[in-house]
């Protein structure tokens, strides 16, 4: 088969795999994105006792292969099957998709926490004092001053993290989730046609490129107050 034919016969599976990859990445990144700012707050402003478990968690996640974490959750949960059944959680852990999402969330949360910590610590203290001085509550300061700045600072690093997560999602194929990588390996084992790997590479690169493009547009919007106003002369 030539490279075109293989795509013609297998495109529905590859499309299905692509959607799965997107689902894993987006869901993982979003859940992690909802948790990490709060952990980052604790990590930068919390007491030492509150910080320590977060530090250990982040260090553990960063110090172990995602594949090992995935096996620990997916296969490891089997060791506690009776207990998990009693808790009604067994059905959750039996499904490789759930395990994969859980691991990706745990993973991305750790990395995003570190990124957001950098963003929060990068916020100009003077602006926070100014907000206090006009009588804002802590919550309002967070919402109106700290987080907007922190996200602007962290934005490029978050983009990298999401791309890393998308790449990591390919590991789900090892525990039989049929993402792009899973479908590719399935098709290769049937056809022994190498070109399917090149198609997979192309799809991954396309996703990355589209993502980077979109992210940049949002970044420009976030930074609109500090971008040079090129059009100022043209308008006047």
């Amino acid at each position: 088969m030539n490279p075109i034919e293989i795509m013609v016969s297998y495109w529905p599976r590859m499309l299905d795999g692509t959607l799965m990859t997107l689902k894993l990445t987006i869901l993982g990144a979003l859940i992690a994105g909802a948790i990490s700012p709060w952990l980052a707050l604790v990590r930068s402003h919390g007491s030492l006792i509150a910080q320590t478990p977060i530090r250990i968690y982040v260090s553990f996640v960063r110090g172990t292969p995602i594949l090992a974490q995935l096996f620990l959750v997916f296969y490891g949960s089997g060791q506690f099957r009776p207990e998990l059944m009693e808790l009604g959680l067994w059905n959750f852990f039996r499904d490789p998709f759930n395990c994969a999402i859980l691991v990706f969330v745990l993973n991305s949360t750790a990395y995003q926490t570190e990124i957001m910590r950098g963003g929060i610590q990068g916020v100009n203290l003077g602006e926070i004092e100014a907000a206090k001085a006009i009588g804002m509550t802590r919550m309002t300061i967070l919402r109106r001053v700290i987080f907007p700045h922190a996200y602007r600072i962290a934005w490029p690093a978050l983009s990298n993290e999401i791309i890393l997560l998308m790449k990591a999602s390919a590991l789900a194929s090892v525990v039989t989730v049929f993402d792009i990588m899973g479908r590719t390996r399935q098709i290769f084992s049937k056809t022994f046609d190498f070109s399917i790997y090149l198609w997979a590479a192309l799809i991954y690169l396309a996703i990355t490129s589209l993502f980077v493009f979109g992210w940049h547009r949002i970044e420009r919007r976030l930074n609109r107050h500090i971008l040079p106003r090129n059009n100022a002369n043209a308008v006047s």
Partner: protein
Amino acid sequence: MLELFSYGDTGWGDEILMGLATTMKLAVATLPVGMIIGFLIAFAAMSGIRAVRYVGVGYTTIMRGLPEILTLFVVYNGAGLLLNSLIKWWNPEAEGTDFSPFLAGVIALAMVFGAFAAEVIRGAYNSLDKGQIEAAAAVGMTPQQTFWRIKLPQLWRFALPGIGNLWINMLKDTALVSVIALDDLMRMTKVAVGVTKQPFTFYLVACLIYWVLCVLSEMILSRMERHANRGVRRA
């Protein structure tokens, strides 16, 4: 519990240690190859010749955008197919052979490492102080001498933190080779799990071993950084 990890026939301690040895061998073998690829690609990406520059920039862009496991399969299966067709072409009677998973692991991991390293090296190269390079020219050093005596030692200082991170990432990525049947730490753990039916215990131990490796690496790296930065900052 402890006897599960003892050394010898009854425990899995020796198997896991052997797996760890393979993991370390793989990582240590990958590092120099990855660095060489990194330097070649970095210099290609900074080349004055446009076609060469495109190759360098294209390589980093593509390799950094692909999942490591995909690269590994492409190398393992692709090189395997290539090797077999070469053998068939050389001697049609020959048996097909499998491409060495160790070699495939080294090549794939080094290709990934090299792509990221190239970016680190390029960044370090751009942060070199132009004045110090001019000073080398002014005392009469040749461009070669300037490279080896002034640029490279300083490049090292700027690149070390980035390369250190890549080393840790690569150490973790070695776990992927268990998927192509290389008996590394991850795969030996899997074998132990198959026999003992204690997946959580064994995978946790594997995780802890990787963790220790990474934390140790970090400690050594921060010492190396301190050494490389000696005298740079004001006391």
